[in-house]
């Protein structure tokens, strides 16, 4: 007995460890796949938001010369000489890449660098400060050199400075953007606001619906659930198309209001390409994500509890308020958090029906990815949005857990 006890425990422990390892082996392929094909690419955004090697690679002598520049007045002749040397010797494609990057630090910076390089190559004059200013007077401006200094930083906080609506002034101090240029913080707050409003609308529409479905006989609610699930299964882009059709100036909604005499032809409601369009379409698209967890929690509430409250003399509304509502809170939390998290990152619907005033944070990321090609800023905005989403996702997993995600 005294010897077999510990041995048995050890054997059991070993068997358990082996079984755990086997379970881990089942999870491992997907875990490796998600880490390599999904998580790692997203992690590279984190690096890209602070890493900016292109300009320094093309202009190494300038980078060295500006290291010792005090930034208080224009750089000395040595810095101009270094820049001339870089512009004359840098390979064509490296210079072009660097010029494109510089353009996001200084509007017109791409042309400034490339045209200066071309002018230097064409003339025999010795490159000097006077020669630079003669080619383009902007070389005599301290702000231009500050921006060049910022662009030359290999590891930089500049994208986050921009994303927080700050900028570098002519003394290279970080100062707030002028009010009319403040964009990203406002947009972030608007995105939070829209996501909150959509969540609230989904709750107001979805709670009574889930309640009625949960009280209905199983057979009937099974049939009615199809109405909830059909939009859930329908392609997002198809649902967005439907809303474009419905909400347009000459669409069915405006036509109907016109026929009812509620509006006249000149005062058709602007329902699309603005924040209204984004709100309506997003609420419709996310509503099933609210109804499904609510319904699933409400079905699990024993009807006897409410009946007990009623039999003890509680008026129906009080019975609902004191008994049913508290028991349905897990469904409210699960549905609201899910809708809010999904709404924060919405892109397709605001891009197609939102116009300018209905634009969300994701749309700015897409703009900098595809149009302005300011990939550093796009990465910084992504890091900010992702942090917010992960924060709420963490709360979701903590209080609800993966088991709360019901899809059918």
């Amino acid at each position: 007995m005294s010897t077999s006890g510990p041995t048995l425990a050890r054997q059991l422990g070993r068997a358990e460890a082996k079984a755990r390892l086997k379970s881990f082996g089942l999870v491992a392929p997907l875990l490796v796949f998600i880490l390599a094909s999904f998580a790692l690419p997203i992690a590279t955004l984190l690096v890209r938001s602070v890493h900016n090697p292109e300009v320094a690679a093309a202009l190494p002598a300038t980078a060295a010369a500006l290291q010792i520049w005090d930034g208080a007045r224009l750089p000395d002749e040595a810095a101009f000489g270094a820049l001339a040397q870089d512009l004359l010797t840098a390979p064509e494609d490296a210079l072009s890449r660097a010029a494109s990057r510089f353009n996001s630090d200084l509007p017109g910076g791409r042309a400034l660098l490339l045209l200066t390089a071309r002018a230097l190559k064409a003339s025999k004059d010795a490159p000097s400060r006077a020669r630079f200013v003669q080619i383009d007077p902007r070389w005599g401006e301290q702000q231009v050199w500050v921006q060049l200094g910022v662009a030359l930083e290999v590891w930089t906080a500049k994208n986050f400075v921009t994303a927080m609506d700050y900028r570098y002034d002519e003394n290279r101090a970080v100062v707030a953007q002028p009010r009319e240029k403040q964009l990203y913080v406002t947009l972030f707050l608007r995105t939070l606001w829209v996501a909150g409003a959509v969540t609230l609308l989904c709750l107001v529409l979805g709670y009574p619906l889930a309640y009625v479905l949960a009280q209905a006989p199983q057979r009937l609610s099974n049939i009615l659930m199809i109405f909830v699930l059909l939009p859930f299964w329908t392609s997002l882009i198809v649902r967005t198309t439907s809303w474009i059709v419905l909400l347009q100036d000459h669409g069915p909604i405006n036509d109907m209001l016109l026929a009812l005499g509620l509006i006249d032809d000149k005062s058709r409601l602007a329902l699309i390409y603005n924040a209204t369009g984004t709100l309506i379409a997003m609420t419709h698209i996310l509503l099933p994500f609210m109804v499904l967890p609510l319904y699933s929690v409400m079905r699990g509430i024993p009807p006897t509890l409410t009946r007990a409250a009623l039999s003890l003399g509680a008026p129906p509304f009080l019975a609902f308020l004191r008994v049913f509502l508290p028991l349905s809170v897990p469904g409210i939390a699960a549905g609201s958090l899910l809708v809010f998290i999904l709404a924060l990152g919405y892109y397709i619907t605001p891009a197609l029906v939102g116009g300018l005033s209905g634009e969300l944070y994701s749309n700015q990321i897409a703009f900098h990815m595809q149009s302005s090609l300011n990939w550093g800023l796009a990465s910084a905005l992504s890091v900010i949005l992702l942090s917010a989403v992960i924060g709420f996702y963490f709360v979701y997993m903590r209080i609800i857990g993966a088991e709360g995600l019901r899809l059918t």
Partner: protein
Amino acid sequence: MMARALTLYAGLVLFFLVAPLLVIVPLSFSAEPYFTFTPAMLSLDPDGYSLRWYEAVLSNPAWLRALSNSLLIGIASTLLATSLGTLAALGLQRRDLPLRGLITGILISPLVVPIIIAAAGMYFFYSQIGLTGSLLGLVLAHTALGTPFVVITVSATLSGFDWTLPRAAASLGADPVTAFFRVTLPLILPGVISGALFAFATSFDEVVMVLFLGGPEQRTIPRQIWTGIREEISPAILAVATILVLLSGLLLVAVELLRRRAEALRTIANLNAA
């Protein structure tokens, strides 16, 4: 009185959910190149309706090409997502798996990470290893997006699973692989198929990854609709949209039947246990 008002309200919400999907159906049969109901359509004049947009779609090589791309990417990513996701769901059944919460969080994350961020990250990463502008890149991206659905549905099915059954198979001499394919898999099949249908629907619907990672050769149906909405608004899009609504109806009925079957199996298992 109160109850009737509540029922009416619920009815209106159901109407709000479904009506927008149905409004495009008659418009897709319009005889005119407009997105609105013409007077002829409203007076139910047969001449106001036509099949011209369906013909336009079916005779347009761009749409047919998009269909074959969508099917190819959809089927390949569904097969990958379903096998990886089912294995992972089986492994996640062990409650004492080390870092189980963190691992689950990572596996489900493609469902909640904003699509534009995933697409941006994948664009940079995949272009470095030459996977942009290829079907393979899109298959990998869509697989990642589809796996959370498989993990969730299969896990839900497994939560009511009777683990004595594969053990019985093992005691009768079946090796683990045989026990899985002959005992476990048939029992959890409804959940696996539901997950696969979710994964397929996700891929078939996805447009942002295609915008970022795909070239002109990899255009899919949602990508064609996207271009259609942004550039030339024609009822041909509505014809495609109508077909897609019909398809989602079919998928929905399939998943609903599978869910009931899984529920029935669970009830039988519980009865046996009792």
